[in-house]
Structure formats: C-alpha cells, structure tokens
C-alpha cells in the first residue's frame, strides 16, 4: 500500500434486537426527529442568511438591469444590459478595476510572503515566539475604519507623525505627500492592508505547521538536510494546499476592499485610488444612480464569486484527501 492510500473503516450494520419495535417505524421516527432538529438549529441562521444576504444580493442583481435614482420605487425603469454597456466605456470603472488588480496581486505577494516568513520563524519555538504571535495578530482585530482614521491622520503632511519620523531618522527625502500623491497612494493602501491582515494568514499557516509530524523533520535531519533544505523540500510541499487557500482568501478580501479606501482617500486624489467597491458606492449612494452602482457591484460580485468557487472547491478537495 502506498503511503497516501488510506483505509476507511465502515461500522458494521447493527441488526435490531428482538423486541425493540418495528425497525422501519423507529428509523422513521428518528428521521423525523432529526429533520425537526435540523430545522430548529439551521432555520434561524438560514432565515437571517436569506433575509440579509440572499435578498439584498438578488435585489442588487435585479436592480443592475434598471435605471433607478433611488427616490421612489415607482421610478424603477427596466433597461436591460444598458448599465453594463455603459460600464464598458466608463474610464473610472476600468481605472478602479486596474487598481483592484494591483491591490490583489500586491496583497497576495506581500501578505503571503510576510505571513509565511513569520510563520516559519515563529514555528522555530524561539524565545518570545508566543509574544510575537500575539503582537502580529493584533492589527487583525482592529477595525479597518479605525486603522484608516489613525493612519490617514498619521500620513497627513500637515498634522501627521510619519513625515517627522522620517526626518528624525535622516530619511527626510522620502517624506512628502502620501495619500495625495497619485503615484504613492495605492502602494500606501496596499501596505496598510497588508499590515492589518497578514497576522490572520500567519496564524493559518502556523496552524498547519503545527500539524506537520515531527518525525518528518527528524527524518530530514538524519538524512543530513539543513534548516533551509528541510523547509524547501519537506515543509513547503506540505504547506502548498494551505498556501493556495491563504492566497485565495487574500485575493477575495482584496477584491472586496472598501473601508480603507473610503475612509482614507474616498477614491482620490482624482480617482487615483478608486476601487470597484467605492465607485459602485459613489454611483449608488451619492450620484443617485442605484441601477448603475448595482451593475458596478455585480461585476465585483462575479469576480469574487469566481474566486470563492475556486476556494470552496480547493477546500473540498483537501477534505477529500
């Protein structure tokens, strides 16, 4: 038997003992009871899910085929695919799309790289590892709105602490506009997004590292492999599926990015940090074009849905393994 073949133990079917009632009726009662339990436990959650997730999603999808200013339901006007045709010619939308792709790729590289390096480092059980795990996780639990407010102020050239800090350590040439410079604003948002989220991905990787049997590392050491070779040939192959899932999660979260951009820059300066979510929000809630805003967000929904589907399939495959 090869090492990755597994044996499945199936419990033997029990024969009902005499005098325990008719088997069919007992099984039927058990099934009915089980169904009632399922309804009781899943019903409320399902109800909330349908009311607050599926109905708005379906509503957004249907509204995307309308021209609706959002003032009165009588004003809903069915326009078919017009909003999507307009999106195809909307320069700001495509610019937002490119920004999303930049943030997505950047977030995958930075978050995965940082999370992996730190997870491997903290897995060495060096002194202070537990402390640093907590420290690195901390930004993850802070609300993104708070992060955006604090760093938005901190990065202000007039009132912030970042430029004075650069000048204090002799790096004054790098000080300047951060969020007002079209060339700097997206990288800054990417860095903040990474700072606020890598801790979670690091924990996912640490959880997987803990599950790797010690014997594999010991066997590699006996075979003469150093620390780096062990990581490269033993640890990383075993982390591959977790890394893939982490990258998919990062991609999904990056596509949905809203709070950081909305609070720190509102998509500016002059759309230089606009992302699909903020453009859809602007169209729907500020420009009173709910139909067009919904169409914008439907595109985002489709992109996220594709990634989520890949993620779920990957997750199922891992379960099957």
């Amino acid at each position, binding site marked *: 038997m090869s090492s990755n073949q597994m044996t499945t133990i199936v419990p033997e079917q029990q024969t009902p003992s005499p005098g325990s009632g008719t088997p069919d009726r007992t099984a039927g009662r058990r099934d009915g009871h089980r169904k009632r339990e399922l309804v009781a436990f899943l019903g409320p959650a399902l109800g909330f899910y349908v009311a607050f997730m599926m109905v708005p999603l379906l509503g957004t999808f249907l509204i995307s085929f309308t021209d609706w200013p959002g003032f*009165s339901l009588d004003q809903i006007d069915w326009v078919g695919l017009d909003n999507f045709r307009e999106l195809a010619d909307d320069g700001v939308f495509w610019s937002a799309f490119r920004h999303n792709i930049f943030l997505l790729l950047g977030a995958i590289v930075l978050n995965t790289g940082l999370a992996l390096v730190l997870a491997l480092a903290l897995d060495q059980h060096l002194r202070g590892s537990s402390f640093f795990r907590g420290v690195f996780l901390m930004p993850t639990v802070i609300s993104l709105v708070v992060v955006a407010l604090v760093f938005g102020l901190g990065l202000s050239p007039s009132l912030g602490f970042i430029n004075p800090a650069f000048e204090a350590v002799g790096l004054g040439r790098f000080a300047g506009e951060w969020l007002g410079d*079209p060339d700097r604003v997206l990288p800054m948002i990417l860095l903040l997004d990474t700072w606020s989220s890598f801790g979670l991905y690091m924990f996912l990787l640490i959880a997987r590292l803990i599950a790797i049997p010690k014997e594999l590392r010991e066997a590699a050491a006996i075979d003469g492999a150093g620390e780096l070779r062990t990581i490269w040939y033993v640890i990383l192959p075993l982390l591959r599926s977790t890394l893939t899932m982490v990258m998919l999660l990062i991609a999904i979260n990056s596509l949905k990015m809203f709070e950081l951009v909305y609070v720190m820059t509102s998509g500016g300066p*002059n759309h230089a940090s606009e992302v699909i979510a903020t453009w859809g929000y602007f169209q729907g809630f500020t420009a009173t074009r709910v139909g067009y805003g919904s169409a914008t967000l439907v595109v985002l929904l489709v992109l996220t849905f594709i990634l989520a589907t890949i993620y779920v399939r990957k997750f199922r495959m891992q379960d099957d393994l």
Partner: protein
Amino acid sequence: MTRRASTRRLLSTSTAMLACGALLASCGLAGGDDSGGSGSDEVVFWHAFTAGAESGAIKSILDGFGEAQDSYTVKDRGIGNEEHFTVVRTGLAGGSPPDLVHYEGYQQTRDFAKAGQLLDLTDFWKEHEDKFILKESAVRACTSEGKIYCIPYTFHSGFQMYYNAELLEAEGVEPPQTFEDFTAAADTLKDAGLTPVSIGAKDGWPAEHWWMNFIVQRCGVAHVYDVIDDKGAKFTDECFLQAAEDLAGLAEAGYFPEGASSDDYGAAISVFASKKAGFMQTGSWYAAELLETPTEFEYGIVPFPRFEDAENTGDITGAVTHVFGIPADAENPDGAKALLEHMLTDESTATWAEAGLFSLVDGAVEQNGPEEVMPLWDAVLKAEASLPWLENELPPGVGEDAIYNGSAALVAGRMSPQEFVESIQAALDKARQGS
C-alpha cells in the same frame, strides 16, 4: 394584458420588492425605533444637526415646542452630515419616512418632488412668506415645477476669509482688502516659513468653494445660472477658465500646504486652529463654531478679497443650506406643520440666530446675532446676488465628481485649468444626455 406586459409587470414588481428589501437590509432601516412613522401625537423629525452650535440650538427649539403645546411630542433623530442624505433618501424610498425632514434643498428638492416624496407646501409658504428675507434664494431652494415643497430656514455665506490676527500682526501684515493685498500677505507669510492658507481639499468642496469665489467675480451669478439652466453658456467659457487659472495660480505660488489634496476639512481647521496657517476660507458656519469653541488666538474675518479688475463686484457665494420638508407618506403632517410653525416663531428664530446661524426670518439675525457674525450677515444683505454651492444645483456626477475631484487636483497642481473646465463640461453634457 399580453404575456410580455405581464412578464414586465412581474419583473418590475419583483425588482421593486427586492430593491426595497435590499435597501432596508443594507441601511438597517427595517424596523427599529428611529425609523419613520409615528402615532398621531408624535412628530418624528430627522435632521443633521448633530454637532456644534446647531446641535444645542435645535435642542432648545424642540424643548420650546414641548413647553408651548400639549398636543404633540417630538421624537428627533440626528444623523451625521455625511450619511444624512443617504438615510433620508432610503427612508423616503422605503416607505418609512419621518414626519418632518431636514435636507439641503435645490436639486434634492427637485429629485424628491419628482419622485412624489414631498408634500406640496405652497399654501404654507404663502401664509408665512412675509416673514422671510432673501426670498429669491429661498424660493429657488424649495421649488420644483412651480410648487414649493420645503420651508427654508438657514442661509450660509461662503464669501469670507478667516485669519489669524496675531500671526498677521507679528509679520506686519494688514488684513487684506483686495485680492492683490491677499497675495502680498501670503507672500510675506510664506517667506517667513509659515503656511499662508490652510485648506483640506480631500473632501472636494473646500477647493470648489475657492473656485466659486473666483467664479462670482469673473463670471457673475447670472452667467453661472445660464450654464446650470442650459441657456447657451458653458463651463468652458473664458471666465470659468480664468477662475480656474486663479485657483491654480495660488497652488503654483505655494500658498497651500503640502497636504492640501489629502487633508480633509477637519485637518484644515486643525492646521488653522493650531496657529500653523495665516488664512482659511470657509463658510459662515465656522463663525458659529468659533463662538462655541474659540481659538487660542485672536482671529478676524474679512469679506473674500476681490480682484481689483473683477467684472462683477456685487455677487457673493452662499446658499440656503437648511430646509424642512414634509414627506408625502408622513403619518403626522399636521404635527409636522405645527412644529414648523413653532420653528418660525420669534423665540425659535432668536435661538437659532443667537447660535450664530443666519435665520432667514426677517430681523432674527439683526436682533439676536452675535456681533462676531454681523459683518458677514451685512455682506449677505448688501450682495446683489448669491451663488449657491454648485453641487447643490448640478447632478452629483458633475458636482460631487468632476468639480470636487477636479478642484482638488487643481489645488494639488495635478490638473491644468483647461482640463478642469473641460472635464466639468463633459460631465454635465453626459448627465444631460442621461436625463
């Protein structure tokens, strides 16, 4: 009914129901104590007076209403300025409006009225119009297709500049009377290593207000309305370009701080209040705020400096900023009217004016306004015409996108004046094609 029509009707109905559900779910307005609707003796009032002088003044007025009569009780809900419009629009569209609603008038009046969301208050206005001054501005803010849908309450002027008197004195600079005086003063402050002008253009409108103060001098209010009302004029006309060049010139001269395009209005206030800048241009609401939270230094206010060669010398910027409407689906319109009547009493308008707010009821400011704001009010009364905030008169895709983003880019020196005016006209043309 044909099958096609039936299908369309089914689709529309389904969409309407889902849209309602989506809006209610997304904005958390489904149910809840603060949503609209009221008992017969309760008046639900939504407003955006959540901070500063307005907050205290509206509380006093509502308390006064409770003491003056026994028929109604008021349940008010303050909503932050940024989300106010979205909440109001959702409340009206979702069928759960308050009985009385505060909003900003102009385009909002036309949009709400077109959707059948507001009661016609023409008769109420006619009963009370003798009390009001600046009637032309007031009526424009509340009119849609010849009917009046709201009652104007406050006027805010945008045609002034605040200055740090101590800083100017230390540098030997006199408060400017003309624009040429202003640039000379700004040069002096800049040479002294100070920031001449505090501005937070991230929000768009602070930079737009600078441009508007140039527009009223270069073009005049009538010319601007020729563009707004599509009477042959365009934002690409020479005077609008000149006004954009005036603003870009200030940026090129280095009068604005480095964070001009990324700081918001609050940051600009902080820069001014922390003695880092000599001047700041903003609305008369700041004068009311200063009464409540004075600066640590002596400040002064001057009318916005005019160009010596300006063609229009009698126009200013400023608008009716607070209006009150009664939603068509209000459960208690009589209670709302009773509250409106109370808000127009001498006692209420005095309370409003004492807080430094420009009540539109005749005599209220003159008799009760603090002396600090009186020069601003005098300038309003002397003005030949006033230009409301452009975003209130134009579709949001023009005002809150092209003008906000463009004027912030002008201040940051990242857009040319020509590109700026062309982008605004292009946005306006696009909006007109869509409507």
